[in-house]
């Protein structure tokens, strides 16, 4: 599966990319990384990712709006929201827009691997 990482933090982008080296995730290939929703949509149009990790609080375009637009274009895209916004309403909003999973920051490597595996298996 082709993965696009969307987060305004270089630290998080780098961390998610590094976790992909876990052998349990060897069917996921990193396609690209974006720093905000606008960049993500551009990359999405070019490369059609099957899997996306999506931050919510980002400049230019936030993750909720980006999720909605991405799902409009690619309804089968599997979007995992990774956000520090830990209120239930935000998670529900993301899921309503078409995200398939939600992972709260801070997260461990195992948390992210489990979230990827769950998303892939579903």
């Amino acid at each position, binding site marked *: 599966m082709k993965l696009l990482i969307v987060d305004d933090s*270089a630290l998080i982008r780098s961390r998610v990319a590094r976790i992909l080296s876990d052998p349990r995730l060897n069917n996921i290939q990193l396609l690209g990384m974006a720093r905000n929703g606008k960049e993500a949509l551009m990359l999405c149009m070019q490369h059609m990712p099957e899997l996306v990790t999506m931050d919510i609080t980002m400049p230019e375009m936030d993750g909720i709006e980006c999720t909605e637009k991405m799902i409009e274009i690619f309804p089968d895209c599997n979007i995992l929201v990774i956000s*520090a916004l830990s*209120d239930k309403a935000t998670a529900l909003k993301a899921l309503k827009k078409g995200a398939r999973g939600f992972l709260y920051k*801070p997260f461990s490597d195992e948390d992210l691997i489990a979230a990827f595996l769950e998303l892939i298996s579903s």
Partner: protein
Amino acid sequence: MKGINEKDIYTFVDAVSAFFFQVTEEKVEIKTAYLLEGDVPSATFDLTSYITLSGDFSGRIYFSAPRSMLTHLLLLMGEQIRDNDRLLDTAGEIANTISGNARRHFGETMEISVPTTQATDPDWLKTVVSPQSYVILVKWKQYRASVVVDIQRTA
């Protein structure tokens, strides 16, 4: 701080503790939160990041830490890049995580901005926050950092 009580402040204490425990697998020592006014230790370190609130809240939440602490955290995370930009980014991510986690307590009407991060002089925070701000001092290993909560309810 209008409409903010001690329980609200402890939400931030919990968020800071949770962040450090997740990254370091160690408990951090949290000094009791205190008001910034009066003769208190400096709460500003090398790099400071802040989140601006809107919605039913106004004000800012600051996270300030020395470069050495952020570098150590990056080492623990397995990060190869530990340059100035990455240290700034890390301070911003910590401020974002602490503020975002606080929404579990305050709800979605506490809207948070993307982080702004900068290098800061030792007394910088005292010049920009209100005297009624709460300071949460964090001690992990030999390092000290701070979270300063300068927020009000507007609704």
